[in-house]
């Protein structure tokens, strides 16, 4: 099929068209026994006209899908450590690190260090767990937002929301991102610069101090680590969003450390400071 050589040039040229020739129809055109009239043609989904193209499309999909799903060969790089403070994971492939970072460090609650799979769930968590204004408003209006993106329903309690998730959105009743919070203590910030951990016992503090040697400035680091002790919850409670009381989950075994009561000399409690944190509530011991 020979195309006129000027055609390719025309394609590359400017938009536009020649002046259309005058149209002049004779009424005898297309009259019986003839029947031609120009018609726009449309084909619906299942029409046979599409068979060939559809078959080609699926051949292509078949070829390609046989290669999906296997672990692709990753280029190895010299080992490096995650740069996030407190994380000591080591990697030898960039993609693995990317996934690690996004899973554990990207959507992390700055108050309680819990990691979430998406910004949306993180925002919801912060609102429901760490915003005291939320608690106040929730007493008077529907504040618990449905977790499904695109659904604008709000609910009075997180239990109502859960029911909605199950009934309307066919979510599993034990959806991990809607687990009731452990009653071990409430984490909420009155002032976002200060984190009050009411369940942080003196034992935790001593435990933390025994981890690192007496080094100036170590206390802060150590404190962060101690707080972060709770950073990696066990598999079953990976990420929590809602804030109602239920039985606390058991402490993961094997993570206790022996602690000593000895306080390093570099730690100073200051004038009149009492030991440990003030707490209006009775402190729950670790189970």
């Amino acid at each position, binding site marked *: 099929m020979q195309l006129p050589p000027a*055609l*390719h040039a025309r394609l590359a040229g400017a938009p536009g*068209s020649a002046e259309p020739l005058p149209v002049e129809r004779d009424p005898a055109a297309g009259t019986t026994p003839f029947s031609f009239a*120009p018609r726009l*043609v449309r084909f619906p989904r299942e029409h046979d006209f599409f068979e060939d193209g559809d078959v080609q499309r699926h051949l292509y999909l078949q070829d390609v*899908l*046989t290669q999906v799903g296997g672990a692709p060969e990753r280029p190895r790089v010299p080992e490096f450590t995650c740069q996030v403070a407190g994380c000591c994971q080591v990697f030898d492939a960039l993609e693995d690190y990317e996934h690690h970072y996004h899973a554990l460090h990207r959507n992390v609650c700055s108050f309680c260090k819990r990691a979430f799979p998406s910004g949306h769930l993180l925002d919801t968590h912060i609102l429901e767990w760490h915003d005291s204004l939320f608690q106040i408003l929730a007493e008077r209006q529907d504040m618990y937002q449905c977790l499904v993106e695109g659904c604008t329903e709000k609910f009075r309690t997180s239990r109502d929301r859960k029911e909605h998730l199950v009934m309307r959105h066919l979510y599993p009743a034990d959806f991990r*991102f809607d687990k009731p919070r452990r009653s071990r203590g409430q984490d909420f910030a009155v002032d976002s610069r200060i984190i009050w951990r009411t369940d942080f016992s003196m034992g935790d503090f001593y435990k933390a101090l025994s981890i690192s040697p007496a080094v100036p400035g170590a206390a802060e680091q150590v404190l962060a680590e101690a707080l972060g002790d709770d950073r990696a919850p066990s598999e079953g409670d990976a990420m929590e969003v809602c804030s109602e009381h239920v039985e606390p989950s058991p402490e993961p075994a094997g993570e206790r450390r022996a602690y000593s009561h000895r306080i390093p000399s570099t730690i100073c409690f200051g004038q009149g400071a009492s030991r440990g944190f003030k707490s209006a509530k009775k402190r729950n011991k670790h189970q």
Partner: protein
Amino acid sequence: MWSRQRGGLKPLRCGVEQLRCRRREREAALRKARREQQLVSKRLLRDEALEEAEEGCVAMIFGEAEIQQFLRLAQRGTEEKEREGALVSLRRGLQCPETQQTFIRLEGSIRTLVGLLTSNQALLQLEAARCLHELSHSEQSAVVEACLPATSYLLTYLSGHSSDFIELCLYTLGNLIVESEAVRRQLLPQGIVPALAACIQSPHLTVLEALGYALSQLLQAKEAPEKIIPSVLGSTLPQHMLQLLQPGPKLNLGVAVEFAWCLHYIICSQVNNALLITQGALSTLGLLLLDLAGAVQRTEDAGLELLACPVLRCLSNLLTEAAAEAVGGQLQLRDERVVAALFILLQFLLQKQPSLLPEGLWLLNNLTANSPSFCTSLLSLDLIEPLLHLLSVSNVVSVLVLTVLCNVAEKGPAYCQRLWPGPLLSSLLDTLAFSDTEVVGQSLELLQLLFLYQPGAAQAFLQQSGLQALQRHEEVAQLQDRVHALQQTALHG
């Protein structure tokens, strides 16, 4: 997908002839499936024989005890590498149907897997997702449906940020979508459409390609016109799809192919094409057509026909909408470069994929039917002769070519004058020799128009033994009346 295909096709053990034979078989199977309206079906996703031929690692058959061991290790092992390794072994085993069956029958196995999927150990998450993907790929419904408890999590992770993980979730969802209407009836209320609408804003090409694939499977479902397409049209998905189809340096072929097919399934379902037109679909697709024509001149074997096909279909169907006329004032629809592009594509298809010629000619029909402008372009760009060249390809193609010529001729003497003289007459005499009634019938229609509008046409026809050519069809029921009428006109004017 695309980039993987380019670089990563494993060398197969069987020879070229076997490959061709195998491909013909696959094609035949697909045709049969399409006729039974079963084209969206799990068993067609994975080509079994191809897999057997290229087994890289041997899939192991694991028993209950072994599976339990792997799961226990993955869940409670102390060394992270150990835990990951356990899942890798499990995944290899899950490539095998027997192991899959054993796995799903084991109590708590899916629960454990979902637990690992949602754990805070990133690499375990990935491996667990790969295991799930293997299961979703199975031909056994029971195995695939065992994955259902994971869907809410797969959808949740689509709003995450790890591109590899999201890609895997999308392919897994794609497999599940294809499985059955029951599965889709769970995915829709779980919010798959908004989840995809959020995910389509990802900058990662691999994610976009996977998303396009999953969406195309969703849109191809039988119940899509009623149950799925309306909510897709109501979301931001169409705008993003059109954006991803804009020609330019950012256009990625693999991504564009998937979303062009998505658009096709939406458009040919005729739910609300006017909306797509207001969002600029005609304009975008027209520009894409121009871009494609440019591309086929530059690159050799890039699989451009995979994109050409849905683009041709979308444009053709959209042109039939009333709303299309309203935007007809837009330059794109009167731009004769569209015609130039189409012919360049027709030439390309003739070489690469002749079975797609009818689709290209369908567009040409819809462009020229009511447009004096495009008919004039055909003439002024000297495209009649190349068009006639296509008359020998097949009956369907011939009918379409003749229809387009009729579109031009029926516009009157000014047009017929430009069709004459030239190779048209001898081509018509050739087509009159065809046995196919439709081809002959369309030739007769064209002759009537030529006799009417072009003085001397009837004369020339007689001189070239036209009457004899007509005679052989005198007894054919659908053709008789027209044959006689033409004979009369030719003889008596």
